């Protein structure tokens, strides 16, 4: 595994007596495109684990565990995710895995984890992620949940917008999300005039944008493009004379987008995040995140911090580390308090199982290089 990154974090609270160790896994893009999300996932889980260890450890029944986080880099690729999952489930003896982020990665490992009863707490977006599964939980809302609300926001707040251009990554995540976005915009009365896909490794979008801009869109929906990629698309579109608006309803990171697009071009881009930037929770987690990774704080830290706390709490409530016991405890734990609000389970109608987290999602607009909260998106 050429790009394997293995970091085993054993966090000791300095407890006098020896404790058992509970290993949990992280699989996500720790390098390359999407690294902002992968490092957020890794950081969120590690911060939650660290806090529990410092409080004396995780109490499950009569035992107390020190939580150890074992992380692997899948580089947003299915093959790497498979290797990582094999390693976690084999030599590392992990039964609880946070991630992957990429839908292709998750769908590649899901048959194996379902067969072995290994639980996945994922941010992957494709609808098939949750279908026909017992042990997969999605810990953040996806386009399926928020698209009607975000599209309605565009309708109410951007009355001049009628023609929509959609651009997404050429993979499972992008295909799935763009289909939902296109339906949501069409049902709301917009004209989806152009839809394009790009490769995740792509940096130059001049040709794609030339084709898109020829259709004269009023708004370009950046969907699930990685934040840096979205910034490059914004900049290159502006350089090609595009004067319309941008929305990014899927994986927003203000700092990364502004860095890539430049402050001037990023002005007015609207997106959604799991937590409002520059709040007490954001800043506290950001300080802890900075100790773990040389990357900008983003909402995936909050999302997976909450998910990890939810899972560890379910283990304590179940009094057991048996997979089925933990699943039952998770399913019965709703509603539960996250760091920025109440969360609950849902998604039974769409996915056949209520393993989709519903949590607050805020609308953020980039103003003068910073994210400013402008509203809240109600989930479908």
């Amino acid at each position, binding site marked *: 595994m050429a790009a394997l990154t293995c970091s085993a974090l054993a966090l000791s609270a300095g407890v006098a007596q020896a404790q058992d160790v509970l290993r949990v896994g992280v699989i996500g893009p720790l390098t390359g495109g999407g690294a902002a999300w992968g490092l957020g996932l890794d950081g969120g889980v590690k911060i939650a684990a660290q806090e529990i260890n410092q409080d004396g450890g995780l109490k499950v029944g009569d035992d107390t565990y020190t939580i150890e986080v074992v992380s692997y880099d899948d580089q947003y690729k299915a093959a790497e995710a498979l290797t990582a999952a094999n390693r976690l489930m084999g030599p590392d003896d992990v039964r609880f895995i946070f991630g992957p982020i990429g839908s292709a990665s998750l769908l590649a490992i899901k048959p194996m984890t379902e067969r072995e009863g290994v639980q996945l707490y994922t941010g992957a977006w494709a609808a098939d992620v949750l279908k026909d599964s017992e042990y997969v939980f999605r810990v953040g809302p996806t386009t399926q949940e928020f698209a009607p609300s975000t599209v309605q926001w565009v309708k109410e707040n951007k009355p001049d917008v009628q023609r929509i251009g959609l651009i997404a990554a050429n993979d499972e995540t992008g295909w799935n999300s763009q289909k939902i976005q296109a339906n949501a915009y069409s049902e709301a009365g917009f004209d989806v005039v152009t839809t394009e896909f790009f490769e995740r490794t792509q940096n130059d979008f001049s040709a794609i944008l030339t084709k898109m801009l020829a259709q004269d869109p009023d708004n370009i929906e950046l969907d699930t493009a990685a934040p840096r990629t979205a910034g490059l698309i914004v900049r290159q579109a502006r350089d090609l004379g595009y004067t319309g608006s941008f929305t990014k309803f899927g994986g927003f990171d203000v700092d*990364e987008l502004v860095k890539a697009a430049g402050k001037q071009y990023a002005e007015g881009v609207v997106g959604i995040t799991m937590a409002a930037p520059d709040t007490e929770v954001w800043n506290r987690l950001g300080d802890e995140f900075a100790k773990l990774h040389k990357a900008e704080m983003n909402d995936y830290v909050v999302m997976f911090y909450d998910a990890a706390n939810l899972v560890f709490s379910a283990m304590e409530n179940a009094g057991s580390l048996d997979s089925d016991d933990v699943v039952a405890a998770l399913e019965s734990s709703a509603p539960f308090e996250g760091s920025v609000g109440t969360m609950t389970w849902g998604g039974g109608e769409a996915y056949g199982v209520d393993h989709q987290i519903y949590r607050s999602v805020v609308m953020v607009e980039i103003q003068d290089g910073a994210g400013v909260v402008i509203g809240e998106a109600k989930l479908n």
Partner: protein
Amino acid sequence: MLQQFLVVAGLSSATYMLTALGFTLIFGIMRVVNFAHGEFLLIGAYTVFVAQYNLGLDYMIALPLAAVVAGGFGIIAERLVFRRFTGDETGGMIVALALAITIKGAVTIIWGVDSQPIDRPFSGSFQIAGAFIPKDQLFAAVMALVLVAGTYWLLNHTRLGLAMRAVAQAPDVARLQGITPWKTYPAAFAIGCALAGFAGALAAPIYGAEPNMGEAALMKAFIVVVLGGLGSIPGALLAAVLLATIEAGISILFNSSIAALASFLVVIVVLLVRPAGILGRT
């Protein structure tokens, strides 16, 4: 749309030329496939970042500095790593890959995985005949063409260039004429890596500097060089134009995935007809 297509193809052609030039130069003279070429481009990009953010230098000073730094690393790499693999294409490839992984890993450890912002020397675009020409990409393309012309002049109108060509054509005969390959190789490697550093420094304000930027650049350079003929500079230039035109055209007509497919199909067809590449030596 036709005008914009011509702009996109033209700007991309120039960038591909510069990215591929150093790669084919090193192979042509040393018979070394420098799979670390992308990482010398990375060194150029990060030199600009360090020069701007740590030293407070203007981009126009950071640009040539990036080439000097990349070229300097090239001389060190040639002396310590590649010299013993001259002529050994397989060994050179393997050690180049190892060097590439090392450089990329070092960059990631030092600066992290995030893309580093580079102050853009130019912003906005010109509008001519209905086409938009981004100023920063135009600057990069013009500089690329100047460097390509400069390299051509060096190879064809200087004693050093004459020595390089002699060593490339017949190293033993060159030795008999008093041209020492061990003095020529460091110069060739330095120039090849300096060109890569320049390419990275020109790309950095447009795309940012991030640890993975070398991989895509290497892939592009490799395709251009194989298509044009390994070791053939005119071939690389012609292939760069061909590849950029196909990619731009197919992307605009269809999508970027089909464009990538078309590019590789062209490479396969050309190599089936001319296994040495368009202008490669048979």
